[in-house]
């Protein structure tokens, strides 16, 4: 980022190559809309270009980058909610935010078929509430520490950890409900029954 700030366009090219896919994945799973994710990803990097002149190395570039992406996504979600007059009722999966695990001892799965399981994983992830989903994505996929996630989301670190626990519990329950064991193996009907 410092090289690009000094006027080296190749430095920005490296940044794009390194972060564009993770940002796009984060935005895609955060918004669950590919077109919106593309636009937001584009806007995020354009914001980087515009704001690069005044950028100061007070934090990791990744933290700053995902802060931009997350804020853009949140703002757009708010606009969409206002336009569509979506009901403020929680999504149907909210009732399953209970941290109680579906299965206390999931059986290991060594022969999971990624192609078959991934849609279910995506569905389980999308079933998480946005605040839990963004914390899970930022920690699990982006690799931010809880303290950094707290900065990105603007929430206390303990809140971030709580949301992470809830997210993991919800995913465990969602995966169990979709017939996926703790290790990705589809559980047998017997094991699926609590």
């Amino acid at each position, binding site marked *: 980022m410092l090289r*690009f700030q000094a006027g080296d366009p190749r430095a*920005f090219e490296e940044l794009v190559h390194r972060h564009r896919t993770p940002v*796009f994945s984060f935005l895609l799973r955060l918004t669950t809309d590919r077109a919106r994710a593309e636009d937001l990803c584009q806007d995020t*990097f354009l914001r980087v270009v515009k704001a690069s002149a005044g950028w100061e190395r007070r934090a990791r570039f990744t933290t700053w980058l995902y802060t931009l992406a997350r804020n853009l996504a949140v703002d757009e979600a708010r606009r969409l909610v206002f336009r569509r007059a979506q009901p403020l009722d929680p999504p149907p999966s909210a009732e399953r935010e209970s941290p109680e695990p579906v299965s206390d001892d999931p059986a290991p799965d060594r022969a999971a078929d990624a192609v078959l399981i991934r849609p279910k994983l995506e569905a389980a992830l999308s079933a998480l509430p946005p605040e839990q989903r963004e914390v899970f994505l930022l920690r699990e996929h982006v690799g931010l520490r809880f303290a950094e996630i707290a900065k990105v989301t603007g929430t206390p670190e303990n809140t971030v950890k709580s949301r992470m626990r809830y997210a993991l519990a919800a995913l465990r329950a969602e995966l169990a409900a979709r017939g996926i064991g703790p290790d990705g193996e589809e559980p047998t009907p017997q094991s699926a029954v609590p």
Partner: protein
Amino acid sequence: MATSHHTFREELLDLAYGELGGRSARALRRHLCGCAECRAELARIEATRKAMSPLGPQPAPARGEAILLAAAREAARARRPRPLLSPFAFRASVGLLAIAVVAVVSFRLAGRGEHPPLGPSGTELVGLAAPVAPPSAPGATPSEAGGKDEAAAGAGPEKTGPATRAAGNLAPSPARAVAKAAPGREPSAPPAATGFARPPPPERDEAKERTAVADAEAERTARADLAAAPPPPAPAAEPAPPLVSSAPARAEEGPAGAEADRAGAAAKLAAPRQEIGPEGARVREKAELAGGRAGPVEEGAVARHARLRAAGRLRVTSPSAALCPGEAARELEVDEQGRVVKLTRRGTAGGSPFQVELFYGREGTLGAVRYQAGGAVRERAFGGEEATGASAAAPIPPWALEPRRAADALGENLHCGPPSP
């Protein structure tokens, strides 16, 4: 113990993601050894993470990346340190500077071309020298000569005298060269004040002053010669006479005087820088002779003769040569140097008496002729129109104009001329 268990349970997430410090991690691991509930919780966390691990990143679409890179290049280009002047601005600045230099040089050259010429023109000199100078102060002495400084400072007439101007460092000019070549110049001539309409440059001042003083000196000498035999009075107390012709000469010569005035004025205009000093008449004759003319009447022949005769400097002789047929007498008037100033011939031509008076200039050329025959007086100044006194019916016969040179009047080469005198 319960508090400790709750604290450890809170730290399970940090332990699962590797964010727990070494001491805390070791303490938690020791707790896990004895706490099955915490071990089960940690196992669930790790199992869920493992279950979600196949969920890899979604590749970003290729489209849009070119736009981002283009925007980045544009921003980087705008962020690069720019030179002080862009190439276009640099070329424009150089062009404007060149135009400004050319304009300044042209303006300077144009301004220099509008200045008047350094050397005074002839007409300017005549016009400035023409005013009659008032008499200078009697106290003006050659000791007042301040040389070039006074002339350059545009000093008044009282401060400038001939001696001063003679000592001045004048710029070279043809007229001054003639003046220098004139012999008998009096360096200590009395000052003759001159008035100037405006203060010209120093060099021009000196030239005009010299011209005016020379004229005044010439006139003074002529009038002194005509007035009386005694030496001329103090010129400082004598007003400067007109430049063109001396009044006594005109009075003496009658109609020839007016003719001389006109010819003299024309000669002055034609030869603007002619010098009139103590030898003014001679110098003027030189200048006019150089111009191909026989010489003006007023200063050359008639006036010179009158002046010399009034001064008693003429000697009347009779030529030794034989007289022409019909010629009764021949009389020569020569100056102190033996130069013929006037030749008078008398006799009878065509049954009527005649008298021819030929006036010669200092250079020995014929300057004027006065021919009287049959009661008519005809005069002719060479270089001017023939004028008659009583009647202008007949021109002067050619034989009466001989000899043309004064030297011939002394010898046998006189052309008798008249076919039947």
